[in-house]
């Protein structure tokens, strides 16, 4: 049962129960919607970029503990950082959750708690949903909040 406890670590349960940066932004410049058809998870991600920096970020939606915690941790880890850093972090996170279980992974600080999904192949998508949505939002042209 240890792999279950690896998956549902206390940090993840905490972020699931009390997600950080949950809600909508007043004036987002970028936005994207993520959807996982397998489980019906939906996620709306909003960002306010200011001079190449993620000045503010928030998410809303319903999802499993893994996708919710991952979204919460993601927003925490990119908030206040340059867009280039956020993109680099996307790559590193993606690498971490897709390396085979049992092989060593880079230490990504708090984000490392999600490396447990490697034992649960169908759950990798839950952990990556927020990150793919982040990438989609960053790749998109800036939008005004009045849209």
């Amino acid at each position, binding site marked *: 049962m240890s*792999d279950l406890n690896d998956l549902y670590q206390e940090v993840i*349960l905490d972020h699931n*129960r009390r997600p950080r940066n949950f809600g909508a932004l007043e004036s987002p410049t970028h936005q994207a919607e993520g959807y996982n058809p397998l489980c019906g998870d939906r996620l709306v991600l909003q960002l306010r970029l200011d001079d190449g920096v993620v000045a503010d970020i928030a998410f809303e939606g319903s999802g499993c503990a893994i996708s919710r915690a991952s979204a919460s941790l993601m927003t925490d880890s990119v908030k206040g950082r340059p867009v280039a850093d956020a993109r680099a972090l996307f790559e590193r996170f993606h690498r971490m959750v897709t390396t085979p279980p049992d092989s060593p992974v880079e230490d990504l600080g708090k984000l490392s708690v999600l490396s447990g999904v490697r034992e649960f192949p169908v759950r990798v998508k839950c952990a990556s949903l927020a990150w793919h949505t982040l990438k989609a939002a960053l790749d998109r042209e800036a939008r005004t909040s009045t849209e």
Partner: protein
Amino acid sequence: MTTVAPARRTEFDVARVRADFPILRRDIRGRPLVYLDNAATTQKPQPVIDALTEYYAGINANVHRGVHLLSELATDAYERARETVRAFFNASSTGEIVFTRNATEGINLVAYAFARQRLEPGSEVVISAMEHHSNIVPWQLVCAERGATLRVAPIDDRGDLILEELERLIGPRTAIVAVAHMSNALGTINPVGDIVRLARAHGVPVLLDGSQAAYHLPVDVQAIGCDFYVATGHKLYGPTGIGVLYGRRAQLDAMPPFLGGGDMISSVTFERSTWNDLPYKFEAGTPNIAGAIGLGVALDYLRSVGLEAVAAHEQDVLAYGTEALSAIDGVRLIGTARRKASILSFVMDGIHPHDIGTVVDREGVAIRTGHHCAQPVMERFGVPATARASLAMYSTREEVDVLVRALLRVREVLGGS
């Protein structure tokens, strides 16, 4: 084929039934398999597995073609399977039994070769709010093409179809009524006899999606009086890739072919082709011969166990499961229709169904989590998804107990409310 249907059993013995299903002996990461995902697909009894091997090892050949012995044997086995299906659904002739890939193909066949001819701007197709996507999307496609409208009969908070609302929707504009005999997401068994009567009063044909019903309750298409009935083999303890469309002869006769190709013609020139007799007009190309034979054996098996006995046993486990799940703090059943079978759809306070599925899987319990290809049903009940345990003839009260313990474990791992 040498497979012989076992003698009819007088009393339902679940241990004996379980012994016929080899997969039930395997373990899941060291724990006994508790398979409660039967609404997705059922497991296969040994005679079905043997029938596939025996067909390929002994009589494999194409059907309705060669004059050689193997082709004769294969054709004979394939057509005997059709007769078994006919008897199972009590159709009046084998010409009314079309083999398809699955129920989805059967619905598409009727949508395209029947409904599309009758649809025009202003006409309507009536379905219910509890349909599987396979009984929604084909109608949306033909309605969009012909400028027709899809109307949806609502369901109440228990998951029962509101018959008066359905009645209100049926009128001179209605081209066809298409509803599930039983809901895959809620377990509701619809009053199909009443539905057919309501439609008939307006001369409207009815298609019933029997994907879920056919392996839980006896189906008599003549007694029900429907025009079309579709079912899928892999839920009837048969192989995947084989399904059945029953169509009333008068309707099938008047319909153009759905797919063109070999076997469905009586003659072909470059100027024109003429169509083969029923049911071959609707079976273009080499069919799933082994699948049909396997399905025939599965239905023989089901009849030997006895559908009435199976239904009674499943109702007992369903009642037990309903009580056991309701007793768990924070568990809410979705779908409590007056008449239902097999399905225990539920949510747990503060815990997403996907997390439930992952944790119970580690206890050896296979359930489905998600929207069950019935997103409108999820929307109706205001949940993004549910966890669904679904029973079959080999399900036991003990398995329900394992599920309940696994759900307590879910609470332990995830906390929740």
